[in-house]
Structures are given as structure tokens and as C-alpha cells.
């Protein structure tokens, strides 16, 4: 390890300990580390945006001889300039035009992806599991596939029923349909509990791996320091 790497490793070691000090209690050293992190990551984000997008797409066309590119680049330059007014609260209303443009595009992209990418395929998946012709991840036993398919279908419908946000009229007896929906929703809660338990374990595994990575780094750093002495 050269000097540069040594300094970097020492810095990483100190910063790791500063953040871990939160386990003892919230303290100014922890907050120092957090603000340092925010500043560095914001700086990186700004540089990437300028280097990767703004310079090549807005500035570079004017160094080429392509007139079409230059004309096309004019519109985002104007819109981008209008967007910059969002920094000032007094002139923020000027940036409404590019914001409306962005919101329209994003909404459309989200709808298209949601319908074609999740809604239709996932509804198909809930039904196709009963299709013996489609070979899937489960084992070859048809009976087991059918049982699993029924459970998945019931679970999917029950989970959707739990998230039903239909208006219930208070003071008036619930309709039979609403009572059924609530009953199915209770079953859906169990499936949601299982899913969230799985998620909880997954998040813990990811955090544990990060902890192991940090502890490994600290142990290796201490070993290298001890080796040095």
C-alpha cells in the first residue's frame, strides 16, 4: 500500500468508527460524518450530470457543424434555463413550463410500463400457472403445481382485497359484498405478513453483509497497522 492508500484507509477507518459511534448514542461526531457524506455525494451527482449529460448534449452540438443538432439543442437549452429559475422562490413560477413537460412525459412512461410490464404479465402469471403446458420453476409434479397455483391465486386476490380502499358507508349495515371483501382481506393480511417477514429477513441479510464488510475492513486495517509496528 502506498502513502495515498494508507491515508485513504486511515480515513475510512476513522469515518467507520464515527458512524458506528451512533450505536452508543447520537453525537456530534456522527453528524459530522453524515454531513461530510452528503456534501461529497451531492458533489459527485452534480459533476456526473454536467459531464455526462449537459456538456455533451447542450454544449458539444455547437462545436460540430450539424445544424439540425444545433437547432434541436436550442429547445432543451431554453427549457433548462427556465428550469433554473426554480432556484429562486420569487421567479419559480417561470419554471412551471418545463416542469409540466417533465411530468407529462414521466406519467406517460410510468403508465406504459405499468400496464405492459406488470399489470398484464402478472395477471397472466396468476392464471398461467394452471396451464400444464408452460414449464416453470416448480418441479414436474402437476398436483403440487396446481396446489401451489391455487395458493398463489388466492393469495394474490386476498392481498388485493386487503388494499381495497373502497368507501364504506358508516352508520349503514355493510353490504354482503363488503363483508366478503373484508373477510378475504383478513386472509390477505396473512400473505402480506409472510411477504414482509421474508422482506425483513432479506433487509437484515443485506445489512449484516454490510456490517461484515465493515468489520472485515476494520480488522484488516488493524492487522496491517499491527504488522507495521
Amino acid at each position: 500500500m502506498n502513502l495515498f492508500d494508507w491515508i485513504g484507509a486511515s480515513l475510512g477507518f476513522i469515518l467507520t468508527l464515527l458512524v458506528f459511534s451512533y450505536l452508543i448514542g447520537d453525537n456530534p461526531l456522527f453528524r459530522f460524518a453524515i454531513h461530510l457524506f452528503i456534501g461529497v455525494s451531492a458533489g459527485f451527482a452534480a459533476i456526473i450530470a454536467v459531464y455526462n449529460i449537459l456538456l455533451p448534449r447542450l454544449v458539444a452540438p455547437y462545436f460540430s457543424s450539424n445544424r439540425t443538432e444545433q437547432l434541436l439543442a436550442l429547445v432543451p437549452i431554453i427549457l433548462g434555463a427556465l428550469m433554473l429559475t426554480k432556484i429562486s422562490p420569487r421567479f419559480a413560477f417561470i419554471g412551471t413550463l418545463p416542469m409540466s413537460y417533465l411530468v407529462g412525459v414521466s406519467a406517460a412512461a410510468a403508465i406504459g410500463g405499468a400496464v405492459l410490464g406488470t399489470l398484464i404479465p402478472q395477471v397472466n402469471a396468476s392464471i398461467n400457472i394452471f396451464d400444464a403446458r408452460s414449464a416453470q420453476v416448480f418441479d414436474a409434479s402437476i398436483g403440487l403445481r396446481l396446489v401451489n397455483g391455487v395458493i398463489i391465486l388466492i393469495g394474490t386476490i386476498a392481498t388485493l382485497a386487503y388494499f381495497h380502499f373502497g368507501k364504506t358507508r358508516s352508520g349503514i349495515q355493510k353490504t354482503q359484498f363488503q363483508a366478503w371483501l373484508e373477510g378475504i382481506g383478513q386472509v390477505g393480511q396473512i400473505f402480506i405478513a409472510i411477504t414482509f417477514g421474508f422482506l425483513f429477513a432479506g433487509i437484515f441479510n443485506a445489512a449484516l453483509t454490510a456490517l461484515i464488510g465493515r468489520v472485515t475492513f476494520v480488522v484488516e486495517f488493524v492487522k496491517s497497522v499491527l504488522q507495521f509496528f
Partner: protein
Amino acid sequence: MRNPVYTAIAIAVGLVVLAGYFLEFELLVNLRIVLLEWATILVAVALLVGVINLFTVHWRKMSTEPQNRTNSAVLIISMMLTLGLVGWFGPTAPISLWIFNHIQVPIESSLFAILSVVLIMAGVRLLRRKPNLLSIVFIGTAVVILLMSGPLFGIDLPALADLRTWIGEVPAVAGARGILLGVTLGIVAAGLRILMGADRPYGGS
């Protein structure tokens, strides 16, 4: 400009982009490509606006809040140093990777690492109140998955391993699929409201 103009722009560009998912006309495809390119540039500008706003907020905090002055100064100095060094040498230069590897990665990894302690605390305290069926199912599932995620000292428990596989492939898939469908329906509803002009989150009111 008046409100209907903003709404009209949002609806017009939205419909062009949405139509491109279902129709294949050359003019529509070309127009869609141009509109999407411009959108990506504007998002980059919006990112820049966010960073500038972060700077101004903390600059103001330095002058108005004496108790937070030090932290805001740390943020501003680190941001300026990063902008200067990475901007001058380039994002792929060794100095940029050094800053990233020895400042950003250790801090963010450590933050994620202390989450493991917090999660165990949450799991322990969940049973403090009288447990009901749902909390028992939740904790039970989490414990089974945790036990069977790791090697378990090399002990082979095929029943538990199969149980983990079955939980991941059947009930968890059912619940996740229901959640995904619910989220998707919400996204479609919200998006359609914007494309119909019923919602104007861009501040056109």
C-alpha cells in the same frame, strides 16, 4: 403563461409518449424519441437545481443558525472540494475514485451496517406487546428465512431448507404479486389523472 397552457403541454407530450407504447407510426416514433431526449436533459438540469438548492439552504443555515453552523460548513466545504477536484480531474481519475472509495463508501456502508442492530431491536420489541396472529406469522417467517439463509454451522436440515424455498416461491410470491398489482394500479390511476388534467403536480394551479 396561463394555467391551461401548462396542462395542455403536459397532456400533449404525455399522450405522444403513451401512444408510442401501442402504435407504430414513423412520425410518432421520431417525435417520441425527440421528446424523451429533451426530458432526459431537463432531468439532469433538475438534479443540478437540487444540488444548488442544497447549497443555498446550508449557506443560509450557516448565517442564521449558530448551533448548526459547523455541520453546514462541513457540508459546503466537502461539496466544494468534491466539485473542484472531481470536476477538474474528471470522474474516472484516481483522485475521484479515492474520494469515493475512502469517504463515500465507508460512511454509507457503515450507515447500512448499523441497520442490522436496529432491525434486531425491532424484532425483539415486536413481541413486547401481546402478540397476535399476524405478528407471530411475521416473526416466524423472518426467523425461518434467517436460519436457512446462512450455513447453520453446516447442519443439513432439508425440511427447513424446503420450507424456506416453498415460502419464497409460493406465499411470498402471492403477497408480492398482490402488492405489485396494487402499486401498479395506483400508478396507472395517478398517471391517468395527470394526463387528463385532473392533477397538476407541476404547480399549474
